[in-house]
């Protein structure tokens, strides 16, 4: 292979500069600012601020409700990631086998991707409205007196359903293209060796899908932690009451609604650490088991 060398040693850095500038301005600087203000209690208008050391963090952990929010975030993230990946995988495997009218099926499965999260939340509100929602009526007929906005678990259930529904198409697109990337020769060879389609899927197809799956796992966890904000905010109608909320929503609630900049910054620093640890674990432990070609 021919070795390509830049004329000047500076050129690669100059080419990298725009990207680095974006990272610095939109990520590093705000993150540093969040870390700084997590040690202060600040008047929202910027007139006075008191250095309080680790008090903001102590207050967060002493708050009885914070543990509840952490637990819900964990359950929510697991459910959303698991169900949106599992359902998308089933759909992708089935769609991969369709020969006639396959593009129609695919389009129908993908269109939800184009729905913005707040709009998905709005559709969720219509479906789950406690007075007129068709889903609520359906479950009522089955004997489940669903009370969205009043009952903690019912509201959590609605959030998971809407968040999963919104995420399935993304996973579907990636998994389908992953499936189509598996070479026919491998599949045919496997078909000769093993007659059971089910076993073939788990021993051949699934491991070959692993790089796509790993990528999607990270994307989905990030989605459930952060990007579901719009869905949650709309479903709660900005009044959380006794309903479940996620960590990101609490950051927003305390910082932007409550103007408690110090407390909210402390929470976002905690969240940053959590995401950092999660990402390291994912890359250290899981990626080792993934085979890229």
């Amino acid at each position, binding site marked *: 292979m021919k070795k390509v060398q830049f004329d000047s040693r500076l050129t690669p850095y100059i080419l990298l500069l725009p990207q680095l500038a974006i990272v610095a301005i939109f990520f590093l600087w705000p993150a540093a600012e969040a870390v700084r203000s997590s040690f202060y209690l600040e008047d929202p208008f*910027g007139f006075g601020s008191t250095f309080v050391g680790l008090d903001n963090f102590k207050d967060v952990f002493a708050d009885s409700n914070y543990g509840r929010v952490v637990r819900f975030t964990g359950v929510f993230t697991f459910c959303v990631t698991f169900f949106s990946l599992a359902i998308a995988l089933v759909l992708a495997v089935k769609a991969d086998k369709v020969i006639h009218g396959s593009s129609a099926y695919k389009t129908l499965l993908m269109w939800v991707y184009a729905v913005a999260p707040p709009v998905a939340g709005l559709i969720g509100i219509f479906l789950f409205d406690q007075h007129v929602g068709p889903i609520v009526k359906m479950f009522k007929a089955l004997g489940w007196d669903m009370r969205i*906005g009043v009952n903690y678990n019912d509201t959590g259930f609605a959030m998971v359903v809407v968040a999963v529904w919104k995420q399935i198409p993304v996973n579907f697109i990636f998994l389908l293209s992953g499936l189509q990337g598996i070479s026919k020769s491998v599949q045919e060879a496997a078909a000769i060796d093993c007659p059971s389609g089910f076993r073939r899927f788990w021993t051949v197809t699934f491991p070959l899908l692993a790089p796509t799956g790993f990528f999607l796992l990270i994307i989905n966890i990030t989605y459930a932690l952060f990007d579901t904000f719009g869905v949650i905010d709309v479903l709660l109608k900005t*009044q*959380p*009451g006794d309903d479940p909320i996620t960590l990101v929503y609490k950051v927003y*609630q305390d910082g*932007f609604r409550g*103007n408690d900049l110090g407390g909210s910054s402390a929470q976002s620093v905690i969240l940053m650490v959590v995401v950092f640890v999660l990402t390291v674990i994912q890359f250290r432990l899981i990626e080792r088991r993934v085979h890229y070609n």
Partner: protein
Amino acid sequence: MAYRKTVASVVAAAALLGTSTASFAATDITWWHAMGGALGEVVNKISADYNSSQDACNLTPVYKGGYEDTLTAGIASFRAGEQPNILQVFDAGSATIIGAKGAVVPVQDLLTENGVNFNIEDYISGVRYFYADKDGKMIGMPFNSSSPIMYVNEDALKKAGVEAPKTWEEFEAIAPKLKEAGYIPLAQSHTPWIFVENFMSRHNLQFATNHNGYDGAEGTELVFGPEIKAHFSSLKKWIDDGYYAYYGAGWNDNQAPFNDGKVAFWLGSSGSFGGVAKTVQFPFSATFLPYWKSVIDEGTNTFIGGAALFAMSGKPAEENKCVASFFQYLTSPEVQYMWHRETGYVPITNAAYELAKKDGHYERTPAAEVGIKQLTLPGGEWTKGYRMGFYVQIRDVMNRELGKVFAGEESSEDAFATIKSEGDKLLERFAKTTAQ
């Protein structure tokens, strides 16, 4: 650079000349508000009328979203030095903006400095001191002011053969009949505002130390006596008996069953009047918020809810002059009466109230007068208002814990213990933010 600036100003001047010569010399002022939908249209009308009433100032109203969004936008703009002249801030956010010394020009100073006659006695009593400092100086100009009142489905009363209750004891007595007649007797739309804050004002009970927080943020703590705990125990019992239904913390979820004719009494805002009148298919009336006879002989006046207009500091004198002139226009009886008639919010001055009476507004629509009558009831030591920082979060805690009481997950006693400990913690933190 200088050349570009010149070109830009020539272009701008040419553009201005093209639009209107009258507004050329006018001083521009901006007003950020949180009034969406029909209310926003009335705000736009008031601004347009003000602009055509004089030549010196040109007011531009800008809708910034909900109350919280508007306050947050105002704060961010202030920190960037781009604040509007007038910012609308809601009741729960008033401690934040008043606590930030130097963020606003007190409206009383603004008016007197600019030669506008100001007498706090001109304002109706329930409104007068809510946005004032501890010495009684008005800081924010009360704008959309409302109070929680009880809306009554007249059909339900007729079917059950009962009358609208004045007290909660009376309500308890008639609730079984309403239930038998096929109605949910009671619903309400804002637990912290109606059942906590205004429970305190209606019964003249202390809400917080430091004179309900007016004396300063330092050392302010919530006060919950046995009366309010007993009230929530009763509410929980009423839920179990089917006399009260709770539909969550959202306003509309609780109003919808009343609008649909399923609920006999709904506690909402006096400002809801216009919306209810347009929606419901049955005859309705409105009356005062009930009180417990066992706690107080005659219920006292309630706090106002809604929002006030604050004149932001750091603006040139001629712009402040315009803000003063707009406030003078806004508080004139005619404009107040128009606002009252169109929206259902109360008129904030005695003169405007008199004008509405003289015009026969209350003979045509008696329910429109309930809010202002309730605000002008005889008051007591604790009915002036309250001033607490991080109050939006304290309300969130109330909604959460009291929601648990309604769901049967927690006793009223435990809920108020949690609200007090978390609320006091927030108040303590707020006191630190304002310390220099």
